[in-house]
């Protein structure tokens, strides 16, 4: 009986292992094709994927990462098999530089022709050879208008002692320094050691007022009233508005970050044509509009605007008013100066 047990066990093990291997092999070539989409969690509606699967007779497998750095580490570590991914602008620049990204065939991307005007020529990829913007937005201040009665228009409100312990800042060194540098009238991409030092001094003054440096759950902090001023991306602030209608969003007059998450095809992708079709699909006006509605981030495709509900379109936290554009700035690679930011950030956190 035990012999049988052992044999059964071995057979079962072999079957399972073989199953794992063969299941992945068939997903590679023969029969139904599989597209591997590597993205942020909950960054695409499942029903939209199902529609693409139906239309092209393929399977879409979604894997998720939690930060740009994780994405880069994974790809540098030698992960292959992913077809399409969505780095943020600065990470797309790095990935292009490192040769991880495949060139795009624009003829297969008719939907990329109708991108928002200011997204047509990204600073790191002016001719759309590698990256197509997908979602975009700003970094500003979310505030509770029931408590902060005079609508703030300057970053200086984050230094107001009246809101001590009711302020949250992003847990992101470049964004936090960016906000301070803008408030000092400087570029957020400065490489000037004196300016960085001065920004650090201002942040040290602010630190006693700050409740948390949070990048993930500031929408909850805002909605629950734990903070009344939050430095952050517009999308989560818009989410907080659903729970607490008195929440408002403003990009201060000194200006702030303009960001875009970009769709790229990876150089290691085994099926670049299907990958390009997928990018084109995600940019389709109606698909893009549904994505904007679900994620509360603006779609990069201008042609999607007519399909976006007006409550989304008119919310400045989601769709930044276009007259803001001259005051917005892309975050770019600061090269060696990054070390200074690193050091200053560490000092701020340790203090």
């Amino acid at each position, binding site marked *: 009986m035990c012999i049988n047990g052992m044999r059964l066990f071995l057979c079962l093990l072999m079957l399972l292992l073989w199953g794992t291997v063969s299941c992945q092999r068939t997903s590679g070539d023969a029969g139904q094709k599989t597209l591997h989409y590597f993205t942020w969690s909950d960054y695409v509606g499942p029903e939209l994927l199902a529609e693409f699967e139906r239309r092209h007779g393929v399977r879409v497998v979604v894997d998720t990462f939690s930060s740009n750095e994780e994405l880069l580490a994974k790809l540098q570590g030698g992960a292959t098999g*992913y077809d399409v991914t969505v780095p943020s602008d600065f990470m797309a620049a790095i990935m292009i530089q490192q040769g991880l990204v495949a060139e795009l065939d624009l003829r297969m991307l008719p939907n990329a022709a109708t991108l928002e005007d200011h997204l047509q020529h990204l600073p790191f990829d002016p001719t759309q050879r590698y990256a197509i913007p997908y979602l975009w937005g700003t970094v500003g201040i979310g505030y509770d208008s029931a408590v902060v009665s005079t609508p703030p228009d300057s970053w200086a409100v984050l230094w107001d002692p009246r809101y001590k312990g009711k302020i949250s800042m992003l847990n992101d060194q470049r964004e936090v320094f960016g906000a301070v540098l803008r408030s000092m009238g400087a570029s957020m991409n400065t490489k000037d050691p004196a300016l960085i030092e001065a920004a650090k001094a201002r942040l040290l003054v602010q630190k006693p007022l700050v409740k948390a440096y949070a990048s993930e759950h500031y929408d909850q902090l805002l909605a629950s009233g734990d903070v009344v001023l939050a430095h952050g991306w517009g999308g989560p602030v818009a989410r907080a508005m659903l729970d607490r209608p008195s929440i408002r969003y403003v990009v201060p007059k000194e200006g702030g970050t303009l960001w875009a998450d970009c769709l790229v095809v990876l150089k290691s992708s085994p099926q670049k044509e299907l990958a390009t079709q997928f990018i084109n699909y995600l940019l389709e006006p109606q698909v893009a509009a549904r994505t904007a509605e679900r994620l509360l981030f603006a779609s990069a495709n201008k042609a999607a605007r007519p399909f976006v509900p007006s409550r989304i379109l008119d919310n400045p936290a989601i769709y930044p008013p276009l007259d803001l554009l001259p005051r917005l700035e892309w975050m770019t690679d600061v090269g060696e100066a990054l070390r200074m930011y690193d050091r200053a950030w560490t000092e701020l956190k340790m203090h």
Partner: protein
Amino acid sequence: MKQAGGWLWRVSLVNLLFLYGPIAVLILFSFNASRLSATWQGWSWQWYRALWANQPLLDATANSLWVATVSTLLALLLGVGLAVGLEGLPGRRQRQIEQAMLMPLVIPEVMMGVSLLLFFVLLRIPLSLMTVIVGHALFNVPVVMIIVRARLRKLDPRLLEVAADLGASYWDALRHVTIPLLRPAILGAGLMSFTISLDDFIVTYFTAGPGATTLPLKVYSMIKSGMSPEINALSALFVMVSMGLIGFSLLLQRR
């Protein structure tokens, strides 16, 4: 004496509270009617319902269960063989090999993850669900070995001598005497490895390829788009399942 006992009792109570308090809060808030994790608005099952309708999460769960099952079977095959095989060696060699096998348990998991990743990349094995399974089997083999060896040590050596006297070959004795006696330990070790594999984040993080997002990886990336009570609900279920399996495993080992 009695006073000292009372004092110790209080200390252990604080200890238990420290260990289980956060988990209790997590489970409590998974029943919160509010979307905000910080405010309580009454009881609700809605997050468990939302969980059930979340296809990506269910896919990740399926991946996790698959990885745990196959890697456990693999670890059992290798670990039990190792434990039984070691018994036949002279004492010094036994200790040397045992210590070498404990390596995956003592080196930091991050290092194991990185070295596995480098290993796979060097051999040009594409990362996939398969590499995750192999990685998990790697750290589960010593677990199985330790548990099975502990049981093996308690076996009466005379049983095997009797079997040999009665004409059983080494393999017969193994099949008909040793393995049946080890069964509780093997089952216990299997449940333990299953749980460890189910909960593992770091090794999975490094060895996961396309289509290999497991539940812990998925939960981690979900936090990025905001903590939702769905994560609480999921974690609560996970804690229950893990604790249940561990309890069952300990029960089997005691027998």
